[in-house]
């Protein structure tokens, strides 16, 4: 049997809206990653990564292609379990519970830590069913119609789809599909949401909508976003983690801190080179 992960009640936003004031020490750390190493077969993809992820904040992972930022993200909700050759070492705790412990059920982890993928991937089912399914299989008790509406409103999609809930989720535009995927992730009532380059396949207007939505959601959720787009990271995140490759082609963490500091006054030369566009 899986051990119960302690559930933190959703907190109302009592936080400052100004990124400048963010200090990870002042917020509870929802997730703590220490000395994370990931291997794909013989390939050592991520080496010795330590990150703290503060509650109700948006943390952005940036860095050049292949530096392991998506890999680290996928470790947080054990999606790497699905890759047969992947091996994860080190510690990732969620509210103090080690998520890689054999006593923890990955199904439970993924219910608490939702995920949105790079390519919008709604189920080939109705819009309603896309949202309802996750809640239902996780034993949601209550009015499911109401739950679907509330979740779609949270994802800023309700007004656009309320008259066509029975239509296929695949019929929506790319940006709408991605917000539907966010709604689907919200439907299981997680408290962390991981987003893996959620806007990289979208046009600028849809991208902006997603970013606004993330700012809304941040009040109640802890968010981690991987992005290739540095403007996006600087616009949307409170904290930024910069990854790069070391001389052995392993993904390593170079620097992390408040987003404003990373973008205006980075400590590491590699970070500076990357954000100013001279590298990567």
């Amino acid at each position: 049997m899986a051990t119960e992960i302690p559930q933190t009640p959703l907190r109302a936003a009592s936080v400052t809206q100004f990124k400048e004031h963010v200090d990870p020490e002042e917020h509870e750390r929802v997730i703590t990653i220490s000395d994370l190493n990931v291997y794909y077969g013989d390939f050592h993809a991520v080496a010795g990564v330590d990150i703290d992820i503060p509650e109700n904040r948006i943390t952005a992972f940036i860095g050049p292609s292949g530096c392991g930022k998506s890999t680290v993200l996928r470790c947080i909700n054990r999606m790497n379990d699905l890759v047969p050759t992947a091996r994860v070492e080190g510690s990732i705790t969620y509210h103090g519970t080690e998520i890689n412990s054999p006593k923890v059920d990955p199904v439970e982890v993924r219910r608490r830590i939702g995920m949105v993928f790079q390519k919008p991937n709604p189920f080939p089912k109705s819009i309603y069913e896309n949202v309802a399914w996750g809640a239902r299989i996780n034993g949601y008790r209550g009015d499911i119609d109401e739950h679907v509406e509330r979740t779609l409103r949270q994802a800023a999609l309700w007004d656009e789809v309320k008259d066509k809930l029975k239509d296929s989720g695949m019929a929506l535009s790319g940006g709408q599909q991605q917000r539907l995927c966010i709604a689907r992730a919200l439907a299981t009532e997680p408290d962390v949401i991981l987003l893996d380059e959620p806007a990289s396949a979208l046009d600028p207007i849809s991208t902006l909508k997603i970013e606004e939505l993330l700012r809304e959601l941040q009040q109640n959720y802890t968010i981690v976003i991987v992005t290739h787009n540095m403007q996006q990271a600087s616009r949307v995140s409170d904290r930024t983690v910069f990854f790069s490759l070391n001389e052995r082609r392993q993904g390593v963490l170079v620097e992390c801190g408040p987003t404003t500091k990373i973008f205006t006054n980075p400590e590491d030369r590699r970070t500076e080179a990357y954000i100013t566009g001279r590298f990567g």
Partner: protein
Amino acid sequence: MSLTTNLGTAAGSVRRHTWRPRIANRNRRARVLSFVFMLAAVSAVLLLALLLGVLLLRGWDWIRLDLFTEQYSRNAEDAGLQAAILGSILLVAVSGVMAFIIGVGTALFMEEYAPKGRITDVLQTNISNLAGVPSVVYGLLGLALFVEMLNLGRVLLAGALTMGLLILPIVIIASQEAIRNVPLGLRQAAFGVGATRWQVIHHHVLPAAMPGILTGTILAISRAIGETAPLIVVGASAVVFANPDSFFDQYTAMPMQIYQWAKQPQEEFTQLAAAAIIVLMVILLTMNGLAIYLRERLGKDRW
């Protein structure tokens, strides 16, 4: 022929080639080859049309109600193949259900549960090889296993189980292919909201793979309905005077009946065989049509 023929020489800025592009030559070769390929395609269709034409010419007069209502008779005028039609339907129904259940189960295990490694490699090689084993060998297996070891005797069930074994590898391979083609994004999405492996399979992988699985199963059944060799070995009767009244009764099937009629010396019986082949062909084409319909119909609203 120079480059400037088609485009004219007006543009003074056209760069002069230092080699000859031989466009006319290349175009001629493309035209000749496309004609050759068209001939290949037409010859296949022509052959099928020829086959159908000969059959219709020989058997058309014998396509009559008696074919479906009468049984074996020494007299061609009174002969029908009701027992054979019924036998064939029962055979493929049992073998189809058997192959579908075991085949989909095997495919799910191989694709979704089995750890990739030596043992699954050996299993996979075995399944692929089984699909290539001649059908008469399955007949011998059925004879040893069902007719003798299980002591069923020469009954319908023994034939159906043998036929099920014969088409099992085809169903497994088609199902594996269909399951493998379910996009990774769909699985990730389902796992991502906290679904168990079985919930992912049950709600997403199987529905997405079902058109492919059904197509494979129907094509496998079409193969079973035309098979003769294994039935001869496991002891389907060539001459049956009544419908099988249970799965433990003696039986015959359409290909058996056709074979029996075709080797009769009288001209009427060869014409009767042609009529029976037409019936068999109609059943086969209907099933293939159904396979296509299912694939198109269930394939809607997919990734």
